[in-house]
């Protein structure tokens, strides 16, 4: 099959968007700036209401921005005042609720973008391309069904085929998987990513599910309250969150408030948290006496029945043990009364997990800790 | 069944009529002097009977609803009768027959012209009342039947808005003049304005005339003729009523206009026949009431009291009633064609032919 969408370079610079609410202008997107390189997959990740959808809709042209510039391959799509209309932007979009047209067949849905395009294709060519798009998502066998006779996953695939049929430079996706059930979501996630790579199309993906964002993206931009707080590759995001918000939002994290007490020979900091002393790498910007937060992931927590001779050990008591199949998760209460969550994985997990109410020692390996501003 | 009501103290001895011919009608100039006192006496007796019948309830269905003012006038003289009225425009016969068929309370009084009451007549709804026995001059019963008390006449007139049209033509043919294009109106249910012409000149001439009037665009069929007449949009109205106080409106008779005597009487199905008789007599002849009708704008209608009544009554007319009654009487005296029992069916046929030509 010969489907070369190819990707465009999207530049969003200082995007602003207000909504009018009860007469007042409420800013929703506040100077969002990012660039997507051609052919890459970028996710906008953030909690509900942070402005992800609004940003995406501004890029699509479904909302008119109030400021900032959006350009695709150097063509300015939108400034604060002039806006290219959505049908002239050369984009494809997949909506959260599929937005499949129920009065058309599967094929009619897919061929629509090719029929309405400005430079109209000959009928035959349009038909060929629509079928190609359907093949791409393995719906070619269903072409003549009414679109309503598809299952949820199939509808989502059709939405994708429709968004790709006219070979746009940019593909926008707004939580396309959130209406699917867990198993289907996994499958579609893989399909979506491999399709995007195969076609080399530029993709901007909106989600509030961190595992979706991490697994699919080349870059992830984390949004909060209308601003982008960190933009990085998935691993960097996970292991080097810029602040507490990102650390918490991307994956599960334990956070302990602490005070920097000094530095050891390696340049690692000595911090005090509830009486206990921890050794941890620490940016030099935090001087002695600074209030900080020590963060560490559950999977890097280790537990011991007796204290080995290693730094960063906290006595604790197990207050919850939960068998999740692949993983056993436990919660241990440290002296301060705060709890730390740890996970144990693998075949041996149940055997290696602590028992409820046991006194244990929690080990936080220094290299697993990260210090952030309080 | 209700013919049972007898005049109190036996049939009244009738005086001799001081007769004047007004067209087909005989006028008794001495009506109020020599007849009315006896009638009035009989009416007092009827009132006493009526009060007892059906709890003093008097049901009067008419073609038009009686206005509350009229009922108030009646009750001023006969306070103990409670009148229930309905206006059953163009459906009176059917309502009366239905009521009888379904056994609901029927009207005590029936009314209409020979034509409009034809069904009631044929189905035998006029109770057998001998009005002359109650003092009404026998000269009044030349047109209809003995049980039908003549109470008024009406007829076809032309109404004109003098702001727009100086003078109406004296004939229907005159309306064909191009100057009247779009200026003449008639109501769909008023085909009878042409019937007199038909009775005189023949059906073909009549339908031809109607066809010409319509095709020339001079004549329009309207449900509401009054507003355009009054505002001047359609300044001539055929057969239109005269309730409009607009001073620019005048009325004139035309050649071959029919004049129709109107009768009232007692329903065979009446529950209060005495009341029915009382109402009919009061409405037709009571001098105070008629005087009021001739002078008070509230009571003006197209109907003019029975021309058999003395001239003095008509001379007392003012305002709209004056224009109206003098036009009608002029027409009648000038030989307007009047329907009679013998010609009734011809009239019906003629009206239906006119109706077909007008609305078909």
């Amino acid at each position, binding site marked *: 099959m010969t489907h070369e969408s190819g990707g465009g370079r999207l530049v969003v610079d200082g995007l602003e968007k207000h909504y009018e609410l009860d007469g007042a202008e409420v800013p929703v997107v506040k100077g969002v700036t990012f660039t997507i390189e051609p052919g890459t997959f970028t996710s906008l990740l953030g909690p509900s209401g942070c402005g992800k959808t609004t940003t995406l809709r501004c890029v699509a042209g479904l909302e008119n921005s109030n400021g900032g510039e959006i350009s695709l391959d150097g063509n300015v799509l939108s400034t604060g005042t002039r806006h290219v209309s959505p049908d002239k932007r050369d984009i494809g979009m997949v909506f959260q609720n599929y937005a499949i047209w129920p009065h058309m067949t599967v094929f009619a849905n897919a061929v629509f973008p090719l029929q309405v395009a400005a430079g109209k294709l000959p009928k035959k060519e349009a038909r060929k391309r629509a079928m190609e798009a359907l093949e791409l998502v393995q719906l070619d066998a269903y072409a003549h069904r009414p679109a309503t006779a598809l299952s949820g996953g199939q509808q989502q695939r059709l939405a994708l085929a429709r*968004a790709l049929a006219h070979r746009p430079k940019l593909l926008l996706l*707004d939580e396309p998987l959130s209406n699917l059930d867990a198993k289907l979501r996994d499958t579609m996630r893989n399909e979506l990513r491999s399709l995007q790579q195969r076609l080399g199309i530029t993709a901007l993906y909106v989600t509030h599910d961190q595992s979706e964002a991490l697994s699919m993206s080349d870059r992830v931009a984390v949004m909060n309250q209308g601003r982008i707080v960190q933009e990085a590759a998935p691993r960097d995001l996970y292991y080097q969150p810029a602040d507490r918000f990102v650390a918490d939002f991307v994956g599960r994290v334990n956070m302990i408030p602490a005070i920097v007490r000094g530095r050891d020979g390696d340049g690692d900091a000595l911090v005090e948290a509830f009486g206990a002393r921890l050794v941890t790498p620490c940016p030099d910007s935090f001087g002695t006496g600074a209030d900080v937060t020590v963060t560490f992931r559950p999977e890097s927590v280790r537990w011991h029945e007796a204290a080995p001779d290693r730094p960063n050990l906290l006595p604790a008591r197990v207050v919850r043990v939960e068998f999740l199949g692949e993983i056993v998760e436990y919660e241990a209460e440290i002296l301060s009364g705060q709890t730390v969550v740890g996970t144990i994985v693998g075949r041996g997990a149940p055997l290696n997990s602590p028992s409820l109410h046991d006194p244990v020692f929690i080990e936080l390996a220094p290299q697993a800790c990260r210090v952030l501003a309080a | 069944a209700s013919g049972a009501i007898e005049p109190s103290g036996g049939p009244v001895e009738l005086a001799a009529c001081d007769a004047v011919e007004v067209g087909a009608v005989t006028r008794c100039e001495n009506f109020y002097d020599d007849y009315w006192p006896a009638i009035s006496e009989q009416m007092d007796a009827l009132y006493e009977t009526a009060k007892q019948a059906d709890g003093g309830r008097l049901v009067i269905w008419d073609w038009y609803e009686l206005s509350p003012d009229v009922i108030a006038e009646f009750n001023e003289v006969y306070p103990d009768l409670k009148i229930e009225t309905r206006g059953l425009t163009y459906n009176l016969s059917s309502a009366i027959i239905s009521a009888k*068929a379904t056994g609901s309370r029927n009207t005590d009084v029936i009314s209409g012209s020979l034509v409009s009451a034809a069904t009631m007549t044929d189905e035998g709804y006029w109770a057998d009342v001998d009005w002359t026995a109650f003092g009404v001059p026998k000269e009044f019963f030349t047109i209809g039947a003995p049980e039908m008390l003549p109470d008024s006449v009406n007829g076809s007139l032309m109404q004109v808005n003098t702001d727009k049209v100086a003078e109406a033509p004296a004939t229907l043919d005159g309306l064909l003049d191009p100057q009247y294009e779009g200026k003449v109106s008639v109501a769909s249910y008023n085909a009878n304005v042409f019937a007199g012409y038909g009775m005189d000149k023949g059906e073909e001439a009549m339908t031809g005339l109607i066809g010409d009037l319509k095709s020339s665009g001079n004549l329009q069929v309207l449900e509401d003729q009054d507003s355009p007449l009054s505002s001047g949009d359609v300044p001539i109205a055929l057969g239109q009523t005269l309730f409009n106080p607009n001073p620019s409106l005048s009325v004139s008779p035309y050649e071959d206009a029919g004049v129709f005597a109107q009768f009232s009487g007692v329903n065979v199905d009446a529950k209060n026949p005495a009341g029915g008789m009382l109402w009919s007599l009061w409405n037709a002849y009571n001098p105070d009431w008629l005087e009021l009708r001739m002078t008070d704008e509230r009571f003006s209608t197209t109907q003019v009291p029975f021309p058999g009544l003395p001239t003095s009554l008509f001379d007392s007319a003012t305002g709209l009633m004056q224009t109206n009654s003098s036009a009608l009487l002029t027409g009648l005296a000038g030989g307007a064609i009047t329907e009679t029992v013998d010609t009734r069916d011809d009239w019906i046929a003629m009206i239906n032919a006119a109706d077909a030509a007008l609305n078909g």
Partner: protein
Amino acid sequence: MKIATIIAGAVIFLLLAIPLAVQVITAFRGPFLPFGVSTAKWSVENFVTLWSLRDDFWAVLGSTAAFVGGSTVLSLLMAFGLAWVTVRTDAPLRRVISVLVVVPFIIPPIVKAQAYLLMLSPESGVLNQLLRLLPGDLVIDPYSFVTMTFIQALTNVTFPYLMIVPILTSMDGSLEESARVSGASWAKTLRRVTLPMLWPGLLGVAVLTFILGLGSLEVPLLFGQESGKSIFALKLWNLISAGAGELPQYGLAAAWGCVFLVITTIAFVIYLRATRNAERRASISGKGFRPTVMKLGAWKIPVMLAIAVFVMLTAVLPLFALFWSAITPYPIAFSFEALVTQTQFGSFGAVLADPEFWASLGRTLVIAGGSATIACVAATVLAYGIARARRTGWTKAVDLFASSSVAIPAVIAGFAMFLTFMVINPVIPLAGTIVALIIAYSYRVSIAYRAGYSATLQIRMELEEAALVSGASPLEGFRRIVAPLLMPTVFAVWIQMFVLGTNEFTLPAFLATPESRPLSVYMYAMISPRSAQLYQPDQGAAMALIFTLLVFAIGYGLQWGVSLFAIGRAKRRNPIPGVGTAEVVPPADPVAPDTRAVAAQDLEERRQLARR
């Protein structure tokens, strides 16, 4: 619960089945009344007569199709345009427009028709006077078929408007947006996606508007004496008005009615199909629903201009014509000279002093309120029972039957009711009473039934089941959970039926007597020269204005009151001792699309709220 359903079903059955049965019997019995007249016998004579009049029949069919079809198409176009502007664009003054569109709905159609007549008089009509001010020799002939069709369309816009608004409101905007990003322009999106999507719903509206138009007598009566005399409603009216020396041809009229019932039944089946489709399509719109608003931009001016013309034609000028008529002693053309010399304001006082005005107003409110209540209660209970029952042949039949009165034009219903009350009068003497009118008005029960049915479907079963497992009996569950949730819909429908009832003319024209006549009939008596001594055009017009204002106030007042009550209820509840009051935060998302069935009134209500 079951018993209540059965009672409601029986009420609706009696309301609809008996009159129709009487009509069919009449069509097959002699020429006059079906029973009690010696000449009545079983025969197909009426149909034979009908067939012998078939040229006439085809003319009626053609003329009716042109008139009703034409006016339906026109009013749908206008209603769709208006609904679009008020729901889907950023046009200014949308609230005001949506209120003004409702005004003509309130004026009784017969008075409205009279107002149009006054407004359109070639010389004196205010519209033609206005047109004369423009260059060109434009004069509208009020009595032409086209004018009549157009007027019918104008008088009927509100009804489809009220039905289209919720359809547009509930359409999932992302369906259009996805067309836009697929590269379709606004126009293409409208043509390829929006309209086809809305098509089943619009078809339903079209059929209802068509049936409504088929049944309304007013405009043909006043405008159509020549050009519209073959229109069905007027034809039926003339058939039952007797010719000279004859009785009305009830049997023949009933036969006509039967034939047209067949036609409307076909339309009705189309309607049912269409709405069923619409329900299916509606069900697939997911969450994340938000209505999209179109920016008018440069189109703002022409759009507002068009709306201004529309409002002029449907509200301002007719009301002005009525007002002019009210302040002049007899009909005269508008002129400034007349304004100075002829006007008088006594008619308003006269109306207010007229005891018959108050009496018939009272009757109107009783009849409209009573019938709306009967219809809403019976329909809601039955609709609930049917919507929740397992679908069997039986429930489907009941469903169909209870929906069927939308297929009965008002003329036929009025006539059938008239016959019915005549027939049953010896046993149950109701003819001519207010009770008869209440029963007759209730025949529109299907409007309430359809609304109740779809509203019930919108109430998720779980809400009731939750009550059951909480220990509530089914009846209690209905009373405490279902009834309050259905209330907004039922109330909206009640208001709609109430307003329809207050301005109903066709039904009382067949059924009312002076003792039971509602205001619409009294008003018509005042403005129709046919009613002899009652004719008082100035007072009639004044009465129409007062009445319009009153119904407007009652309708909006009730709605306002109810929405106030609904808000207040949560706040007024006694605080529980020992519990601080948490401040009330509005829900984050709009409360699901569940509530969207609640017709235009719901929207109206929210607007009321927003205004506060």
